[in-house]
């Protein structure tokens, strides 16, 4: 469970936000979500892909995400996740919260 030093760990609590943001693109299965997050962050933000699943479970329980089994273009069975209305609302809140924190951090860093 140790992570190599070349990888950056996620800021705690941001995985949910990234997942929700990714899902605004449309219904995706777990692997696609993981790939999307890695690709967009240019592989800087790398998480153990498995930790995506507890996060998805958590989001479903909170009602921000729902899931449904479907078929991939290659005909395999896969679970597709969709963001709900309240998930979008939550995403908005999380982004503004995140922006506020980043702003604060930047201010602190510049002053130092």
């Amino acid at each position: 469970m140790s992570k190599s030093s070349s990888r950056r760990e996620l800021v705690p609590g941001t995985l949910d936000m990234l997942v929700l943001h990714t899902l605004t693109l449309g219904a995706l299965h777990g692997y696609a979500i993981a790939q999307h997050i890695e690709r967009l962050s240019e592989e800087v933000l790398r998480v153990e892909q498995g930790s995506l699943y507890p996060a998805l479970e958590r989001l479903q329980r909170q009602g921000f995400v729902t899931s449904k089994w479907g078929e991939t273009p290659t005909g395999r069975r896969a679970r597709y996740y969709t963001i709900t209305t309240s998930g979008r609302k939550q995403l908005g809140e999380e982004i503004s919260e995140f922006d506020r924190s980043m702003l604060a951090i930047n201010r602190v860093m510049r002053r130092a």
Partner: protein
Amino acid sequence: MSRLDGWRHRVRVLFGPGRYERDLDEEMRFHLDLDSVQQRGAGERENMSSARRRFGSVAYHKEETRRMAGFDLVDHTAQDVRHLFRGLRRSPAFAVIAVLTLALGIGLTTAVMSIVDHVLLHSLPFRDADRLVSVFERQDGGAARAPSYPTVQDWQREEPLRAVFDGVTFIRGDAVLLANGDSREIIGAAYVTADFFTIVGARPELGRFLLADDDAPSAPDVAVIAHSMWIEKYGGDPRIIGRRISVDSTPLTVVGVMPAGASYPTFATIWTSLSHYKKQDQVAKRGLHADSRTIARLRPGIDSARAALAMRPIESRLAIEYPVDQARWTGVGFLPLRDEIIGNIRPMLLTLAGAVGVVLLLACANVGNLLLARASARARELAVRSALGASRGRIVRQLFTESLALAFLGGALGTAFAIFTVTLARKLPSSRLPRVEEVAVDGRVLAIAFAASIVTALLCGIWPALRATRATSGASLRIGASGSVGTRSESKLRRSLVAVQFALALMLLVGAGLLLESFRRVAAVPLGFDPHDLVTVRIAPPMSRYGKPEQAAALYARLMDALREIPGVQDVATIQHFPFTGSGIYTPLKIDGLAGQDSASGEVFYRTVSDTYLKTMKMSMAAGRWFSADDIRTPGGSFIVNETLAKRYWPGQSPIGHRVTIHRSSQARPDFGQPLEGTIVGVVADVHQASQDVAPNPEIFVPYTLEPWPWTTLVVRTRDAARAFPAIGRAVMGVDPSLWVNNDPTSAGFRVVEDQIAQSLVQRRFAMSLVGGFAACALVLSAIGMYGVIAYGVEQRRREIGVRKALGATDGNVASLVVGESLRVAGVGVVLGCFGAWAGARLIRGMLFDTGPGDPAPYVVTILVLTVVSLLASYVPARRASRLDATIAIRGD
């Protein structure tokens, strides 16, 4: 909407746990497959392992996801319960034994403690029952007697007594003939005044109690009946109110029903007005001190010592006013009503409560042991789960659920068992356990027993879980591989638990042994007569036709002649108070020429007998002669005493030829108290009068014709006692149909003497068999405990045993190693138990007869039994150990 989506998801997880798991597996497999396809590595295997690296531990993430899914308590519990049933299915013997042990512990404790609590500690159905006392007059010598009605009326008039009593009331008891349709039956009646009901403070079950108006001589005759009579004879029909019943040929109207359990005096099944009592002249006598009770209600805050103090000046004044009756009777004694109703059953109930408490402790120890053993066996499983990422809390919670479920299953079964036992106990005759018919399972007791078993289950279930998960996972896995985690201290704990079990079992066995020995010795005490083939019939002739002494005497002679005619009857005799019926009457005894040697009152039994009594009873003479037919025909001048009387008043000498003076003792006759002078002509061997564990009282016998008693007991020696009743009944009614005798051998008039003697031992037998049963349970539980620990020890020491064998230990060496271990554990328990048993036996000394806590016999037998049990319990493990193959054992698994 969102909340709904979330809940919908939770419900899906909860109700489709299997599908949820499968889905999760599939989803993760899909992820890995896809990722490995995307890798552009050398080969399929490398691609897959690279995908797995990127994914992280599948098991860990799965467990994490599950943890997320089971965020709700409900989900977790459902999961735990599933684990539980899976686990219990895997080891059903463990589950069954644990649940049964708990059920036994909880059930027995609850049942016995409910009975004890009810009979002993619960208040009677009277308001503030603690303040109700029964009142006696006391002599300086310590003798006690019931106060007469005129005395009680004097008390009622005394102003100073109102400061200590809320009321004093007099109750006259009598046996009356109740005619109900065709059936006639002798029942106990209490003649009371209206204030009786306000003093006891009960509420009528139905209708009303007697009121002051009912005490007026001109008022119609009314009665209150007992709850038991209402149920048994009238089927609990509410229309009983207003119904007319016939008591001693007088019609009475039923106006109320007493509540259940409120029967006081305990013999009473009907309460009616004292002012309408036919034998008014008797009640009005200052000399009458029998067949009555006087009860009082103490004012709040007044104890019996204060009340006795307040009564002293009044009693002193009465002693001066009525010297004949009251001189020397200047003290007053109080007995709490509860003690009078419950009697001497207290030591027995406390013994049972103690014994059952020991059984509960033992059951808890046994379940603790089982849970510890199971936890050890599962240490590896727990270590693996812990290593795979199950949190410590999660594992502990699972074991918690498991222990709790066992405790609840055991508790539920135990409750059912307790209800069953109490229902059985309620059917016991109340002569064995007073007021037992109202016993119900006590909720508080049940809760305590339940709590005890839950605490045990939790302590013994969770402690090993905490231990197992505390160790770093790698280490526990390795140790787990040899099947033992935390072995040292745990097996030590388990051995101590078994030692404690043995100690507890020893206490119970020794206690049971002492009770058995006491029973044996009591039953072996010679009665002084031969009860075999002996029956008795009580005859209470109507006063109208047999009221005069000579009429009664003539009737008894005719009855004896009639019974002698019955085929199979060998001998017939008469006596007024037969032994083992709990009845008797005392006479003062004055010995001529021995001033100051008079008997204390309440010491010498007065018996009126026929000349045939000695032969019928098969008693024997110690000296002198028995009554002849002449003594009966022309009575007077000749008395016979028993050995106890002879030894007490003529120690080392013969009483024969000495002259004594006694009193006429039938209070129903006008000549009551008249002196009777005579010479002692014989000494008869002692007969036990109350029971075999009570020494005989002094007795003096006179011819029945000297003072023909108003009623009598016919004693018949016949073949096949139980079948003789119909013929006896017919013969009695042949003499006079108004002497009506019920043919039912269970009716009050008939007694098989052997049954009556067995009845006197019934409480002793009851306590002995219950404690014996508890001891047997204890023995089985300890044997299970011992087997478990020894078998587990062998499993744990496989490698050591293998090494020993490889180094040349014989099968015998190995077996004795195992057996030695078991004997060591048993030895510790035995030493502990001996102290416990000695202390326990001191507590039950009141129950013991002719034996004591220091009697070595039960200890020796018990220690032998426990040794055999521990040998048996270690036999199988020892055999298994000695057959171990050294090489396999050393290699491990």
